[in-house]
């Protein structure tokens, strides 16, 4: 069970306070009508789904009701950073990858 830092409440809270909200930094196309069906499908359904670092959104549903971003490793579940919507992620890739080599199985 994860412990997630809410950048708005500025403290760690238990996972059960949050709801997962999918891949982060997907921008809605400004002119959907100008997209091909293929491009629209890409926006709708196709996801990175990486084995490794993932930028994702969480919603503090039982807390401050804010969405925010989390950079988390999908194998170690280690959280590298959590940051507000609109902020850019900082990557600490090496740290997380080191961990994965331990975990790989």
């Amino acid at each position: 069970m994860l412990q997630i830092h809410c950048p708005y409440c500025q403290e760690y809270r238990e996972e059960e306070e949050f709801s997962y909200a999918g891949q982060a930094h997907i921008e809605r196309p400004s002119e959907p009508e100008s997209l091909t069906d293929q491009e629209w499908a890409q926006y709708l359904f196709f996801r990175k789904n990486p084995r490794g670092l993932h930028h994702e959104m969480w919603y503090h549903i039982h807390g401050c009701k804010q969405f925010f971003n989390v950079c988390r490793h999908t194998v170690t579940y280690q959280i590298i950073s959590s940051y507000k919507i609109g902020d850019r992620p900082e990557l600490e890739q090496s740290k997380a990858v080191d961990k994965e080599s331990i975990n790989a199985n």
Partner: protein
Amino acid sequence: MQINRLNHGGNIDRNQVLSFQFNGMTYQGYQGDTLASALLANGVNVVGRSFKYSRPRGIMTADAQEPNAIFQIGTNASTIPNPRATQTPLYDNLVASSTNGWPNVEFDMMAGIGKLGGAMMPPGFYYKTFMYPQSMWMNYEKLIRKGAGLGRSPMTADPDRYDTMHHHCDVMIIGGGVAGIMAALNAAQTGANVIICDEQEQLGGQTLSSTETVNDITATQWLSQQIEQLRKQENILVLSRSTTFGYYDHNLIGINQRCTDHLGEHVPHSTRQRVHKVRAKQIVLATGAHERPLVYGNNDIPGCMLANAISTYIQCYAVIPGNKLVLMTTNDSAYQAAIDWHDAGRQVMAIIDTRPKTDSAIIQQAQNKGINIIFSHAVIEVQGSKRVNSVNIAPINNTGDNVIGPAINIVCDTVASSGGWSPVLHLSSHLGQKPLWRDDIIGFVPGQNDLLNCGAVSGKYALLSVIEDGIATGGKAAELSGFERLTDLPIPDIIPQITAAPMALFHVPHIQTTSRAPKQFVDYQNDVTAAAIELANREGFESIEHVKRYTALGFGTDQGKLGNINGIAITAKSLAKTIPETGTTIFRPMYTPTTMGALAGAHVKQLFAPARFTAMHQWHLQHGAEFEDVGQWKRPWYFPKNGESMQQALLRECLATRNSVGILDASTLGKIDIQGKDAREFLNRIYTNAWSKLGIGKCRYGVMCKEDGMIFDDGVTSCINDHHFIMTTTTGGAAGVLQWLELWHQTEWPELEVYFTSVTDHWTTMTISGPNSRKVLQKVCQDDVSKQALPFMSWIDATVAGVKARIFRISFTGELSFEINVPANLGLSVWQHIMDAGAEFEITPYGTETMHILRAEKGFIIVGQDTDGSVTPQDLDMNWVISPNKSFSCIGKRSWDRIDTKRNDRKQMVGLKAKDTNQVLPEGAQIVLDPQQKLPMTMVGHVTSSYFSACLGYSFALALVKSGTSRYGETVYLPQANGQIYEAEICSPIFYDPKGERQHVE
């Protein structure tokens, strides 16, 4: 008669005699006993029968590894299947029985079959037979199932309660042996918040049976002092009888505390077990080590035990489980068992040391006591049936691979064995880390992770090094969790002992090949033998995971604690690999089995999930409502009167509403307060229709789609003022819609100035509907609610029954309707005033079912019933709710333009009239055009809503049908399970008042 009870010693209270029953016989033990120690004290040999071969089995260990003494404990509703006797504290009148054996464990009918059939049951035999004919498997299976399984489930609901507690601490120490105790004391002196837990009744672990000297007092005396200190320290929480069952991400552990199990079967008004969930800054693993048995011929005959278990029974329980002992060991530590046996006054026949002659302090100690030590030998085979009566020992070579001389027989009744120690590292691999093999200690230790390990779990076994490690690790843990490390606690004086190196031996060789030798058990619970593992390897099951799955090694309730390392070693040898090359299976939670009720905690029965109530709930109860679960809400479904059937009640409710006036508690509808200058623009983007021109005081129906173009919620939104709207949502969709609005606002359009606040709970909503609804309203409201002042699809501020209210003139029934919203604190009060006012019109409360019928007569949809996540507004013939001219491409719009959503033969909403007008078509019935076709039939749609209409006098339905809107007038068929085929005609989905005159009524 406790024939094996010593007259002195042990941590038992001889003044508290406890009676207990085992397999129908009554015995006595003492307070402080476990069930296992009490059985051994009474000389009970056979405690169970093995699963596959029905061999008699006795108590083998004194801890969580126990594979044989697995019982049914307790009676009736409070019976527990499968607890280990070694971990069951004895209480007065405890009732226990073996889980296998018929008619009983002493005389088991299956044993004969086990002996004969055993030869035909190599590992995986069931994959190779019982296949023909196919139809017979279900019969074979019945027999197999009967033979399998251990204990019985209780047959009535659990009388006990459970709960959960959340903790956050600086240092969590798992294991209350001396390493953990010292770590806790040293960490706590820095000021850190410490929790320490131990699975046993008593803290102390292995040191409880130690005979060493510490600071010039006995180790047990010294230990008591430390424990006393521990309990005095305010910042240490000590949890006994508390097993850590799992280690989870981000340093969370789950602990199962058995609060009352030691007191009796059922202790009223208390929590039987509690799960502690501890989120720790730093976790210290001080879980110790388990002794490993050796694998030798007939090593399962009662009387074969772990060496360390013998010391534990003698030192902790004053029980000596036999008369004549033969001890086989690969290491020094097991000598203690023979010394304890000897000191207790019974005969040690010999110590069989598998090592070439060696010397150490403890070997000398044994020699000094006159115990016969035979080096370079092994017990290759045991004789006996329900108890060991002798052993064959034989000389072996230095690597332990072969027998190199003839066997000799030694008479004995107990065989202790020790193959060394296995660190209890299970928790360390719960997150996926693989253990590491260490040749020097001949065991796996935890792999690298966030845990700190100390004591035996990290391969340190000598008391002095364990204490040193505990202190150092406790200090480090405090430091890592942010505390300043002080001067560590002093190391006590312990005289180090000269030891001899252990030998790496797991599987004792026999004169015969493994496949022909007497059975050499590796996993007792699943009757997995060394021969079985070798056979699995021969057949190509080489990965240790394959070996495990093919032979069932480690699948018992001990999770392989006793046998896994031996199994890995046998596999390694048979594949000519090293143990680290062979690897180990990953341990998963639970460390030991955990009660399901404890995991569920208090979330059972009425607390399984929250039930939400409206302000009128008590009124509904008093008026006999039947309730429907809608999401978490309890909504009145209908209000049967005087023994009415549901159908009668519905007819009455419907007619009353259509002909006079009905009243509905609609408080559960989601309500979201939307404020800000960009509220309109936001609504434009989120709804499919346009909101730019909705005037103040007006209401509008809207549909929301997901970005895939499919409807996901609907409701009426009203304009309070240019910057202020109130949105309603479906009952089940309220939370989801709020999250949806926040998602778009916070992540895509933060520039829009708008705030959303849920006000679902603030407003009580009561809908009065029917031709007399205005008359009722006018009795309790002096505001002008005429058509001119309050036209259809508008709202006003008003005072209703003396309470400030918002009245919305919107209609879900097609009748003249008013939705009256008042603050919920006054909801019940206003409701009662309206009921009083409506009495002269026989105002009739109705529930969700009548609401559904009335709306369906009008062709109004229920999202989630008439739609299923694959329906667009166009499919519902609701093009009127789509605004083509909005500048912003609203959510979902683009998706309507895809090939599949553009098709004109999509399923579309229509009405259905049954040919037999009294026949209510079943909801969910599938629709076909040709009822005579063969299976599989081509289905063109299904019935989504279907009712008998009281006011129309016939049945009707809503359906989704392919190209439905162009099929009005066509006949379709609904084939039923019973062979009947209903006929129906496709028609408009609006059955009642198609022109909408009634809701616009003067």
